[in-house]
């Protein structure tokens, strides 16, 4: 019953719809960005369907992958941190938590319901971003085989070529892989949420810390710190878009992320179970 109640509250809130709208808007912006870039490169002669990048390798799948990569780094963590942040702190500030805690319901069950729904939403918006990116790529650019070259996005260190069907299968695998990576900022923000009195504080704090850790993980100067930061492992799913899959490396990174997620979830639960509701 608590799962059903929390589910109803989630869908009656604006959060899933804001996330969906934000992701759709982001993809349109990405498309416009690619188009204007191509117009500049071709002095205004770009054919929106095919020629605004080198058509030999740029197509709808490349667009979907780039768009998903940017969205995964910048947008999805904000939405999952928002979801994690509002769970406990939002209910604390509204008084709803007091009402739920005076029911014959264990704190463990309430916590698990909140965690499960947040994870489901994270999986949902990750799948939505991937799906929308692919659909937009198909209709606005057109699919083909996926070719990746070394570049600033660090997608690969050498040229990769995947047949269209194989590339689509990899996109499908990227969905759970990216969801697992997002479970870390989600559980982290849930932990912050158990310490905060208001959702705004919880979301603001967790998003800020995520961004700082992301920047630190990207800067060469902090190389020694990287192994200790969950943000270093989050883009591990890029490894799925290689001709030869390095399963050992993928599983290793996924395990580290799962470890971080379990640690933050355990800390959040410990705090939620024992804290006083002053």
């Amino acid at each position, binding site marked *: 019953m608590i799962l059903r109640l929390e589910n*109803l509250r989630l869908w009656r*809130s604006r959060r899933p719809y804001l996330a969906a709208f934000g992701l759709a808007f982001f993809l349109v912006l990405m498309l416009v960005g690619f188009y204007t870039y191509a117009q500049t490169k071709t002095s205004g002669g770009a054919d929106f369907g095919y020629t605004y990048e080198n058509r030999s390798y740029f197509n709808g799948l490349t667009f979907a992958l780039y768009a998903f990569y940017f969205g995964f780094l910048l947008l999805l963590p904000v939405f999952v941190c928002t979801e994690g942040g509002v769970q406990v702190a939002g209910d604390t500030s509204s*008084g709803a938590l007091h*009402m739920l*805690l*005076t*029911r*014959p319901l264990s704190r463990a069950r309430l916590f698990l319901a909140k965690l499960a729904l947040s994870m489901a939403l994270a999986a949902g918006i990750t799948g939505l971003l991937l799906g929308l990116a692919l659909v937009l790529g198909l209709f606005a650019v057109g699919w083909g085989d996926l070719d990746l070259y070394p570049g600033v996005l660090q997608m690969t260190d050498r040229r990769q070529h995947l047949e269209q069907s194989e590339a689509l299968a990899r996109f499908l695998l990227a969905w759970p892989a990216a969801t697992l990576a997002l479970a870390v900022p989600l559980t982290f923000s849930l932990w912050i949420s158990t310490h905060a009195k208001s959702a705004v504080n919880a979301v603001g704090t967790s998003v800020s810390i995520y961004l700082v850790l992301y920047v630190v993980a990207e800067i060469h100067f902090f190389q020694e710190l990287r192994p200790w930061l969950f943000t270093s492992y989050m883009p591990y799913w890029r490894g799925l878009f290689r001709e030869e899959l390095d399963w050992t490396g993928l599983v290793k990174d996924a395990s580290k992320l799962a470890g971080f997620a379990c640690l933050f979830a355990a800390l959040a639960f410990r705090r939620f179970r024992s804290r006083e*509701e002053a």
Partner: protein
Amino acid sequence: MTAQDDEPPVLAAGVCKRFGTRTALDGLDLEVRPGEIVGLAGPNGSGKTTLLKLLAGFLSPDEGDVRLFGQDPFRQQKSVMRDVRFAFAPPPLLGSLTAREQLSYLARLGRRRAEVTRADVAATLALVGLEERADDRVETFSFGMRQRLNLAQALLPRPRLLVLDEPNDGLDPLAVIELRGILRTLRDEHGLAILLSSHLLIEVEELVDRLLVLVEGRTLFAGAPARLTAGRERILIEAEPRDAARELLAKRGIPATPEGAVALALPAGSVELVDVVELFNARGIRLESFRRDVPTLEAALLATLQGEVERNGRTR
């Protein structure tokens, strides 16, 4: 472990709770028995909310023991809450749900679905006068309607102990009277124990069997409300000229102290009306009025508080 039938609904002994250096509750004792309404009163910051949070298991006492039906609400929350229901102030509601959904979901949390039927939900909404707004979202409700819904969620399914925090806030006078009727019915016909918290004594004095008054975390008064006013009754007379009347009464050994601009206050039972009339007529003093003065609970409490301050020489 389940709640014990033979244990009192509320039993708190020597409860202390501190927040940093501030002592919110200091050695509080409280017992609420089945079938009685106990009022919890006191000014803002007196410790009422802290006590309610201890009962709800939101806080753990620093000293002393809190038991609801023999169980610790902080450590055995799930089991305790099967028999206890709270209505906090301000009403903490789930705004995105309709009144019917809220009542239905909350009532079924931690219970089997069959324990609360749709008819139960409808009947409870009707009881608090919300049947016509049952399918409207709670976020569109006025404060008074939220308060009614808050009461409804506390009544379904019917608990054995009901704890209400400022239940009259936002209710119109008719609704306040209806609420009193509902609470009396629950006490008299269903044997519910009810703890009613309010910062206004006038709201609880008509309803409660016993009263606990807190001031700065300590118990100022505990007992039947009548005990608070007992011994504080007076006789108020108005006579012209007042000073002559006062002197005359003093000569007869009756202490009379000026009360306001025109009246004299005499100890209750010190004199009868016929004697005063006879006495004053003989001396040409005109008696304007003679009446018994029973102080309100608030006035009696204020006098008790002042007495306490004088005894201590200072407020704590």
